């Protein structure tokens, strides 16, 4: 077994897990809808998790990548729900390369997140840095929701092929689909919606 193939497998696994995650949290078919190009929000979450935490170890400043252990954590929790008959895996997954989490229905994937944030999981069985670290488990499980929504409804997907470039090299390639969906017109110079002043400073008179 070469290191490269392990990495590819690991990458595929991580990708599938986060695709399964965003598929459960975000509007249906967000990743595959015809009207929008691939939103790719799972890639946003993977990037965010892999660049969220860095610490000093002896003389080295080290980034602690969280995406892979988070995917493992989702599977551990999913497996527990399955063993205890609270979730039922389907025979095949829409997310090739993924683990138990990706075999669950959308609702059961949400149930898995709820179980994790309530620490309904064997804390000792989790990978580092989650092992016996309740605070971090809750923090990251919650963040998965926030990251998904911010990734989807912000302009991030519209950076297209430059999404994962350093921020100053990203370019908007189309109008953000999430903004289009909700009717947000985007960056504005101003709006002519001035309806007067209810109070004025120092004079306190009503118009």
């Amino acid at each position, binding site marked *: 077994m070469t290191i490269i193939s392990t990495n590819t497998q690991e990458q595929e696994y991580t990708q599938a897990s986060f695709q399964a995650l965003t598929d459960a949290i975000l509007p249906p078919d967000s990743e595959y809808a015809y009207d929008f190009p691939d939103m790719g929000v799972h890639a946003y979450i993977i990037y965010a998790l892999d660049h969220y935490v860095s610490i000093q170890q002896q003389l080295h400043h080290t980034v602690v990548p969280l995406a892979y252990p988070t995917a493992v954590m989702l599977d551990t929790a999913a497996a527990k729900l399955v063993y205890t008959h609270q979730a039922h895996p389907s025979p095949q997954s829409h997310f090739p390369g993924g683990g138990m989490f990706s075999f669950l229905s959308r609702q059961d994937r949400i149930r898995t997140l709820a179980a994790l944030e309530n620490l309904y999981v064997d804390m000792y069985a989790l990978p580092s840095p989650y092992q016996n670290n309740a605070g971090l488990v809750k923090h990251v499980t919650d963040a998965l929701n*926030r990251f998904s929504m911010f990734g989807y409804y912000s302009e*991030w997907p519209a950076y297209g092929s430059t999404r994962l470039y350093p921020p100053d090299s990203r370019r908007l390639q189309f109008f953000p689909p999430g903004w289009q969906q909700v009717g947000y017109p985007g960056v504005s110079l101003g709006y002519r919606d001035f309806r007067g002043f209810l109070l004025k400073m120092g004079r306190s008179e009503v118009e």
Partner: protein
Amino acid sequence: MKTDPDVIVIGAGGGGPVIAKELGERGINVLVVEAGPWYGNKKWPEPNQNRGKAKMSSDPGDLDGSLYRNQFTRLENDMNDLVTGKFRWGSADRRRTPWYRNVPDRSFLYQSAGIGGSTVHYYANSLRAFPQAIDDEWPINYDDLIPYYEKVENTLPVEFAPTTSKEALFYYGAEKAGFPLNQTLDVTSSGYRPQPNAILPPNEHLMDPDVSLEELSHMEGCTLSGHCGQGCPYGPSLEKMAKRSTNVSYVPLAMKTGNVTFRPNTFVMKILTEDSASGKPRATGVQIRDTWTGEMEELSAGIVVMAAGCIETPRLWLNSELPHNDWVGRGMTTHYMDMVTGTFDAQTLMEILGSPSVNPFVGHTSGARLDYPGLGMIENLGESPGLSAQQAFGFSQYGYNILRGPGSDKWDQRGRLTGSELEEAMNGYKRSLTLLIVTDDEVQYQNRVELDPNIKDEHGPVPFVRYTPSEKSKKRRDQLAKVATTMLRGAGASQVHRSDLPPNYYIHIQSTMRMGFVVDSSCEAYQVQGLYIADNSVDYNALGGPNPTLTTQALATRTAELLADKYF
């Protein structure tokens, strides 16, 4: 200028630039060191990509409004992403990760590093404390504060917010719920009013179709563009930008005194002290680290002012091994928050507003408020879609609406929304009004910032932050959530969602270095001579609920006066 300043100020956020300007005007030489980048300064044309040629800047001619406008793209991910955003808590270099803080549990610690600090993304609501939260509570009286409030209000300046659709709907709801208009800055009873905020009033030509919005955005005054949370680059020059973050208000004024220098990209690692005749240590300077090169240096000054914010000021005290004080980092308050969102039918809106949508993204991010002394306050909140979705529907201590249901007939939905529920809620974005509930929370010793015993970053042991609301705070929040819901229902909302936010939503952090416990009533540390504090951490309590920054700025103004009288 002299190489050794008289005073070193640590941090250029809400408080630091205020004390720097006041001292500079008194002829005192000040160096402000700031951990993050400087946007809108010609000496750092690409502040996130390279260190720039200069180390510091003191010439107001270095400030450049059009550069600022290019950098502040107003795109919510580009500006506000926690990991890579320009307003993140981290070094200027966006290839690097943010600075780590151990904030366990469901939590969101929202601060910004750079010249202007967290005021670059704040909403500029500039409120006085409730008098009842100061009198007989703080070591000073409300009347002592009034002249300083007035000075800051005139300097920023503070004005009452104009009305746009979402404020009109807010006032309508408040009236339906039976509240009166409160025509005052000193609030002693409940009622609604426009936000007094540090935003220049709209230009008189805003409604004139012959003047284009492009032109208006280069003129003086707010254009109601709705980007307050993404930073405001609208105005004829840097110092005339509509939203008065300290980087466009107090920083230029400080520079104009000719006595104040700002040095960005510089993290203070340690406060230096020496023994003095009085028996207690005396501040002598700081040890700093360049965030681009990692180079360390020592700077000396007779007086040091900590203005690094509520998390970093206590962390710095502890990492500097200053004398032990039981209250350092303790008694943290955070205005235990919640959010209630109402969605309206087009027909209802037509009747109230004469238009079928509220368009929450138009106008000041938060232009209207309801004050409720004894409980706290409620304000409207109109953010861009990504931020709205994540705060209102993605962050909750309740769990998922599809698994639990709303749990009360007051709300149609509660907690996190996912899948088609989320889609439906966001499809109502343009017809929605979100109310932010800001609860006056009690000071409790166990709520704290301390050093993480196991984790360090390049600046030493990282902060560990923990907060649990008291029973009283929980009750107050529930009452406010009901009031907010009554306002929305009264205005005719067809659907009401309660976020039920987790307690650890850190936006208004205060009181980790309390007056009367860590600092005396002039904000000088009891245990270290010549060490002052000028940020939110000196607040004795949570002010009764009003947003904290104006009080910090009033106190910093007062501290400058007392400091100058004592030492210069």
